[in-house]
């Protein structure tokens, strides 16, 4: 795994990425209608580790989030999970897809 220290930095600048407060309880994944093991807890772990490569490799999963906030309804840390996923999309659009023009 390659750690990319600039990765987290860019994300923090982009929005309200607050997954660093996550307590790793897994409630979100149990509630998520997608039923994808990675979503959302493990995805955030990878982001927090600075594992940019594997996060970029999961772009399809990132774009499959419904932004439905079911996960947030019982998150003990009150994390803005959907907003975090949205920041990852913004990141991918900018840094990977080159879709940043206004």
């Amino acid at each position, binding site marked *: 795994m390659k750690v990319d220290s600039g990765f987290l930095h860019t994300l923090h600048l982009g929005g309200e990425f607050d997954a660093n407060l996550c307590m790793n309880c897994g409630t979100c994944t149990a509630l998520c209608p997608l039923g994808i093991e990675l979503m959302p807890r493990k995805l955030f772990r990878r982001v927090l580790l600075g594992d940019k490569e594997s996060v970029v490799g999961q772009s399809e999963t990132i*774009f499959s989030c419904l932004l439905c906030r079911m996960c947030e*309804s019982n998150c003990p840390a009150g994390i803005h999970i959907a907003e975090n996923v*949205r920041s990852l999309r*913004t990141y991918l659009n900018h840094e990977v897809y080159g*879709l940043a023009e206004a």
Partner: protein
Amino acid sequence: MPVPIQSTLGMLGDNLKKRHSALPIGRKAAIGWTRGLDIPRGGETVLYTGQMWQMVPAINAMAGRLAKYEKSGSTRLFGFARSMNKLVNLTPFLARSTPAERKAFDDRLRNIARLLQAAGVKFGYLYEKDLYSGALAYDEGLDENFSAHARYVYGVLKEAGVKRLITVDPHTTNMLRSVYPKHVPGFDFEVRSYLEVLAEHTLPTRKSLDRSATIHDSCVYARYEGVLEPPRKLLAGSGVALAEPELSGKLTFCCGGPLETLFPSKSHEIATKRVEQLKAVSPKVITACPLCLANLSRAAPADVDVKDISDYLAEAHLPAEA
């Protein structure tokens, strides 16, 4: 083979930038629903559709096409489509809906406007200046496109002298009420959903519906905007006895609609699951969002009747349209 994310989002961003809409649908499709309703132009309080209801038949048709691409794997076309789309607007070709579908969705807008009129609410409409909110671009993280578009919409509203907006779907409500103020300096309009407005007024009663049904809360009304009581109050006042599904209110289960364009089969899978949950309580399902309505209807078997809340309210409080 999934639908290529980059090209699809690229087209969306290009359309918003060049045509101020995600899915340019043309003037007639956007404002044709107002025919004969005598809604004054402009004013301080306006009904703002953000073109969501009008766009759904086209989104439906497009999702159908995209699902075929998803299966066939012929996705190379997409990069080409995006570059062509910059020159000529391709989306109407990709998204062709039938007149009957369009009428079904236009009729909901007509009913909503007529309900507000019947309740004595004074409002105008911006007609060709009733623009799309950019909700999809925001959700997909196209922040620059979205912000530029939001500032454009703000300019249009200010110039028209608008102060209060009455919205008719959860996504536009959320954008204008909670997202725009963070992205557009000075955005200070009062934004309320027509359900919130109607719940504060008295509607003339024509008939009590005397039937039971279940309700599907939209994620956005329930968990983003806290609009839970108004639909329940309005339905109770129309003689509908609601049986709540196990997952309802703040714990409502998504209809799958947001995935319609990029992941049509996943979207259908989630909708089917939701229909099962609702059906366990009642075969009559009431939605309050055009996307929930479309997505759940598509997944519903013949013995499940999915209708919008405005259908029920119109039946209870309005004379039938000629």
